[in-house]
């Protein structure tokens, strides 16, 4: 049993599904998690994996690149089979129409019926939530906020991708595929779990207060009472015309009580406003960040966690596409993949990461003890 991972780069979707199914079969999974390139027909890959494991809960999503133990991949499907010795019980709900509506409460009512305990009373050490969400609806903040309102258990996950086409992304559950939807799963674990949240930034001594915001459109109109792009450029000591060239290296961060940033990455400049990949609330104070080394920082985070936990059963890595692009540019993707050689791992390059809220330029990693 325990956890097994597998991947396939076969072109035909049914062949790829068969290959990964054969690779994880030994785990006799009660839960299967799969991440697949958009080259695979979403409905077919989901149906094939569910057919291969009729009694398992099968969830997944489309990606912008995949991760499997020791490797970063593209145009592949990766899967993890999680045995009953790791997951005692699990339940999945599909939340539809996420762009305009928020049906998290209904999903939570179903979870409460399944597990026989209120979401707000669930043991935070043994229950964990997974969220996979259509990455092109801009709905992550509303979903994560409602989840956080209604439960104390950790929900971790990522926003589905489509190999940078930015046309349509899919989530998978119960042998079907869905757009404009999120898949929520609650796992009751036998040995518990931990979380790694790692981003490669340090804080500069520069603060920007969001004084005028268009929250619906993830747009900051003004920082510190000035046009957003002017204030951002001023903080970095560059000409406003150079502002957009600083985005990857200098995103902004809400600093949590442990001193770690929740990264908000700028996407583009519109007039003098800045559009972000996630929402910034008006009156929030953000720190200007400066990038550090993804490989070294991730290695340190993973090694520290492994040292504190001892042997772990597996990891699921929700890894920002912006980090993937930076690793590709620096020819470091292979080195990043190798950081996850010693533990059964799957993951994917996301259009956003979820942990407490919606974040950018981060890896949120679920670690099964």
């Amino acid at each position, binding site marked *: 049993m325990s956890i097994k991972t597998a991947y396939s780069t076969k072109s035909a979707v049914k062949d790829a599904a068969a290959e990964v199914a054969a690779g994880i079969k030994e785990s006799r999974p009660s839960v299967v998690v799969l991440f697949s390139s958009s080259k695979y027909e979403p409905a077919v890959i989901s149906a094939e994996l569910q057919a291969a494991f009729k009694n398992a809960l099968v969830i997944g999503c489309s990606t912008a690149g995949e991760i499997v133990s020791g490797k970063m991949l593209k145009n592949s499907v990766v899967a993890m089979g999680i045995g009953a010795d790791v997951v005692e019980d699990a339940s999945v709900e599909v939340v539809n129409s996420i762009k305009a509506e928020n049906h998290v409460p209904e999903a939570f009512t179903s979870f409460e019926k399944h597990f026989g305990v209120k979401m707000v009373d669930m043991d*935070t050490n043994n229950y964990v939530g997974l969220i996979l969400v259509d990455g092109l609806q801009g709905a992550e903040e509303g979903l994560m906020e409602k989840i956080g309102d209604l439960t104390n258990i950790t929900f971790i996950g990522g926003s589905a991708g489509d190999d940078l086409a930015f046309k349509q992304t899919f989530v998978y559950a119960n042998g079907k595929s869905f757009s404009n939807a999120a898949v929520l799963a609650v796992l009751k674990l036998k040995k518990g779990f931990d979380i790694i949240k790692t981003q490669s930034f340090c804080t500069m001594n520069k603060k920007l207060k969001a004084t005028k915001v268009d929250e619906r459109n993830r747009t900051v109109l003004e920082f510190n009472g000035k046009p957003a792009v002017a204030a951002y450029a001023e903080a970095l000591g560059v000409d406003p015309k150079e502002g957009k060239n600083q985005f990857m290296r200098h995103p902004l961060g809400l600093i949590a009580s442990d001193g770690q940033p929740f990264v908000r990455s700028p996407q583009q400049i519109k007039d003098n406003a800045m559009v972000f990949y996630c929402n910034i609330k008006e009156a929030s104070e953000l720190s200007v960040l400066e990038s550090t080394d993804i490989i070294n920082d991730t290695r340190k985070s993973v090694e520290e966690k492994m040292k504190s936990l001892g042997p772990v059963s597996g990891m699921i890595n929700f890894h920002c596409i912006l980090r993937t692009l930076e690793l590709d540019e620096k020819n470091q993707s292979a080195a990043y993949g190798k950081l996850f050689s010693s533990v059964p791992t799957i993951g994917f390059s996301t259009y956003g990461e979820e942990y407490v809220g919606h974040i950018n330029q981060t890896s949120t990693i679920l670690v099964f003890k």
Partner: protein
Amino acid sequence: MSGQVKSLIDKIISERSKGNPTIVNTTKTKLILKGIDPDEWNAASPDDSQVISKIKQIAQELGVTL
């Protein structure tokens, strides 16, 4: 008058976490993401009616009765 903002924030964190230190931290982060940084407020902070109103709304969202 002063200190009401901190007092309300502390009550939200205390009610929600019931003393669990991990939930204390995540609740603080949830508040930051909702636009209220708990560390910005202390017993001497003025009672800003707009902020108090926002915190009451957040408490309702989190299911905490103030």
